[in-house]
């Protein structure tokens, strides 16, 4: 039996992975095949007498994918990162050179004193050189043309279509005039208009591309949460051996110790432990695990150790379920329509119509085919939207730069545009609106004990534990300066409490069962009792502290007219308390990660645009379903990778700021587009030759276009002056 791991490329969705698994398992000799979509790897166990690597690769290829043995493929990691900066700069330089030459040649032609320069610049050879350089720039940016024409043919033209169409027409027409035997035909050549736009657009796209998130990374990190090895216990000898997780079978017995990550979903059969399940549920306090409790892959045991029976492995674990949900939601996510594309949708047909009508009218009135064709091409070329194409990238560039200065990381241009359309903000509770760690809210003392004494004994004992509740009580002790008393006969009972001797007195501190307190847990929060020398002397009430800025942030959002919703997996009482304190009218409690996503989907159906703010993996499904996801800085890596916006500074202060920035940026984009649109309309009308006596020289067009573009850039830069508070 041979075991191999292959890297599979070309898989985009769960169906693709299933297809690969299906076809490979049909091969004779395959014993086990498992395909992992997130890591793009296939694990296969096969009989090498019947099967070999070549047959496997061929079968995968027949299904439409590529397979490579994992070790070899590490070399070919030259990822598709898009065009390199150096080539983009070369294109930009070429564009500038051609524009300058063109303007100079037109000026020289008009001025008899510059006849020598004129003859040099208008020389056919110079023009042909320009044509070739121009073509080089176009070929390098072929994607703009390819995508542009594709959308045009689908009758759904976008910005690319506009650029592709007018750049192509101006190029072909210019080429045609240059190749004419008539010597001054080169005057009409206008290579510069198209090449300038294309070069500038490619610079803009490169800048946007640098912030783009790579979705594969987030999912990979999620999978990395589940360890690669597990300790399998032989029931007869009770000895544990470390084996790769893939080799575990259902109903095997595993052993997990404190400090280790749980490898698979299982049911505890022996032992007790505390598990940190925050990555799955958002619950910040460790959860007690006893016999018959479920432990989940990816969680960490903080205390104790357990033996468990394996109930779900690999794809079937809860963790994988969350990952699959996220990846499915990501493929279903509709691309955000960008405003520049929306304008192009009607602008392109309008321009084509105007060009056709003008050309036809001129032909009918003058019977001059050359002139009409010239006007037709002129109009299409003049529509070339240098300024329009620049409007969005420049504003986005300044916007994301400003955001970065304010500690806000925006992942894409679309995210920045979409921020302005958000009308609903959904918050996760633990870790987002709260600090995520418990704090002592109240200390009740009984039997005339002083708080100082109670705290002294409690802190002494809790100093010996790393449990979050212990840390909170110690923190309070430090604040009240109770010092560190000595503890003897210390005992830690995981999930229940601590026991020991402080100053000769027997102290027990823990939950209600452990301390056998004759009371009720009637305080909102976690109730921790302290028993000194057999008498319940006090009770600590710990709650998850709300972030100090939270109330102001909610107020700001509501003042801006946003609907605020609170979602949490915690119990109703706790969530209600937080909602009331923060003045949030809409809240849901006790919900699992997938339910969060479903609630968001329901709100989306009402036509709202949702921003989800969260910090944990359990928020990953919701972060993906929301129109935009915002991760709290200091949150988990996965939340950060699945989010469109990341607040790098601690806290949620920057949430309203990010929304404001989005609004301002979109306003700038609209302003620039409006200006560019007006300019284009005027020049098109002039190019039609409708206004009598006004002949529109193409060099003037070039100069005006540059000026217009500069104005757009300046407008974008003015964004820096905005106040985000």
């Amino acid at each position, binding site marked *: 039996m041979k075991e191999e791991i292959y890297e599979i490329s070309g898989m985009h969705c769960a169906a693709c992975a299933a297809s690969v*698994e299906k076809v490979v398992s049909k091969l004779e000799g395959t014993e086990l095949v498992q395909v992992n979509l997130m890591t793009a790897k296939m694990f296969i166990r096969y009989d090498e007498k019947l099967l070999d690597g070549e047959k496997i690769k061929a079968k995968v290829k027949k299904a439409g994918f590529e397979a490579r043995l994992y070790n070899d493929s590490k070399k070919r990691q030259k990822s598709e990162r898009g065009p390199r900066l150096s080539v983009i700069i070369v294109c930009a330089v070429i564009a500038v050179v051609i524009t300058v030459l063109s303007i100079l040649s037109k000026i020289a032609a008009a001025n008899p004193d510059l006849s020598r320069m004129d003859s040099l610049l208008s020389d056919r050879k110079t023009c042909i050189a320009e044509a070739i350089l121009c073509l080089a720039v176009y070929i390098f940016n072929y994607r703009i043309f390819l995508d542009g024409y594709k959308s045009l043919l689908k009758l759904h033209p976008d910005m690319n279509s506009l650029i592709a169409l007018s750049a192509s027409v101006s190029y072909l027409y210019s080429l045609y005039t240059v190749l004419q035997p008539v010597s001054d035909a080169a005057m009409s050549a206008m290579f510069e208009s198209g090449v300038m736009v294309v070069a500038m657009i490619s610079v803009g796209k490169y800048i946007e591309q640098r912030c783009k998130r790579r979705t594969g990374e987030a999912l990979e990190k999620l999978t990395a949460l589940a360890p690669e090895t597990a300790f399998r216990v032989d029931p007869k000898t009770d000895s544990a051996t470390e084996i790769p997780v893939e080799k575990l079978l259902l109903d095997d017995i595993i052993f997990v110790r404190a400090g280790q990550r749980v490898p698979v979903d299982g049911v505890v059969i022996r032992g007790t432990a505390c598990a940190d399940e925050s990555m799955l549920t958002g619950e910040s306090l460790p959860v007690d695990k006893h016999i018959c409790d479920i432990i989940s892959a990816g969680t960490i045991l903080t205390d104790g150790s357990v033996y468990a029976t394996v109930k779900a492995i690999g794809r079937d674990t809860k963790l994988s379920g969350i990952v699959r949900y996220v990846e499915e939601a990501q493929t279903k996510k509709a691309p955000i329509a960008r405003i520049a594309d929306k304008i192009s949708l009607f602008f392109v047909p309008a321009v084509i119509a105007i060009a056709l009508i003008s050309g036809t009218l001129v032909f009918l009135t003058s019977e001059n085919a050359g002139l009409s064709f010239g006007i037709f091409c002129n109009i299409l070329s003049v529509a070339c939207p240098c300024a329009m194409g620049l409007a969005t990238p420049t504003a986005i560039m300044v916007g994301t730069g400003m955001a970065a200065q304010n500690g806000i990381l925006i992942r894409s241009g679309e995210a920045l545009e979409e921020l302005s359309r958000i009308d609903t903000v959904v918050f996760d509770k633990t870790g987002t609106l709260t600090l995520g760690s418990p704090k002592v809210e109240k200390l009740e003392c009984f039997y005339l004990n002083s708080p100082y004494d109670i705290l002294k004994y409690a802190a002494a004992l809790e100093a010996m534990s790393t449990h979050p509740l212990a840390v909170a009580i110690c923190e309070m002790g430090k604040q009240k300066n109770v010092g560190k008393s000595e503890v003897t006969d210390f005992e830690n009972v995981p999930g229940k409490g601590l026991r020991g001797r402080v100053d000769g007195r027997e102290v027990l501190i823990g939950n209600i069962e452990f301390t056998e307190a004759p009371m009720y847990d009637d305080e909102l929060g976690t109730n921790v009792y302290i028993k000194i020398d057999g008498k319940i002397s006090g009770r600590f009430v710990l709650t998850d502290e709300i972030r100090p800025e939270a109330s102001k942030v909610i107020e700001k959002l509501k003042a801006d007219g946003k609907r605020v919703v609170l979602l949490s997996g915690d119990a109703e009482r706790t969530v209600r308390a937080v909602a009331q304190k923060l003045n949030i009218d809409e809240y849901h409690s006790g919900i699992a990660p997938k339910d969060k996503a479903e609630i968001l989907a329901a709100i989306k159906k009402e036509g709202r645009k949702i921003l989800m703010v969260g910090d944990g993996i359990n928020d990953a499904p919701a972060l993906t379903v929301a129109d935009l996801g915002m991760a709290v800085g200091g949150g988990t890596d996965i939340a950060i990778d699945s989010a469109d916006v990341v607040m790098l500074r601690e806290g949620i202060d920057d949430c309203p700021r990010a929304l404001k920035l989005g609004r301002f940026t979109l306003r700038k984009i609209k302003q620039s587009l409006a200006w560019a649109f007006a300019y284009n309309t005027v020049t098109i009308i002039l190019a039609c030759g409708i206004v009598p006596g006004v002949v529109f020289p193409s060099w003037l067009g070039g100069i005006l276009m540059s000026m217009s573009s500069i104005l757009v850039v300046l407008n974008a830069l003015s964004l820096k002056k905005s106040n985000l508070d």
Partner: protein
Amino acid sequence: MKTIKVPDMKCIHCKERIEKGMAAENIKAEVNLDDKTVKVEESALKAAIEELEDLGFTPEVAD
């Protein structure tokens, strides 16, 4: 024309894979992602079904 149902066609990439696969086998096919169907000439039916299985889908003949 015969219609083949392909319920596990999930995304646009699945559709592209089918189109490419059919073209490689010289089968003229109409792939519809919304209905999850592939339409071919009756003469090419057997070859189309074989190709769909090779691609990892589960074809069901509808008509």
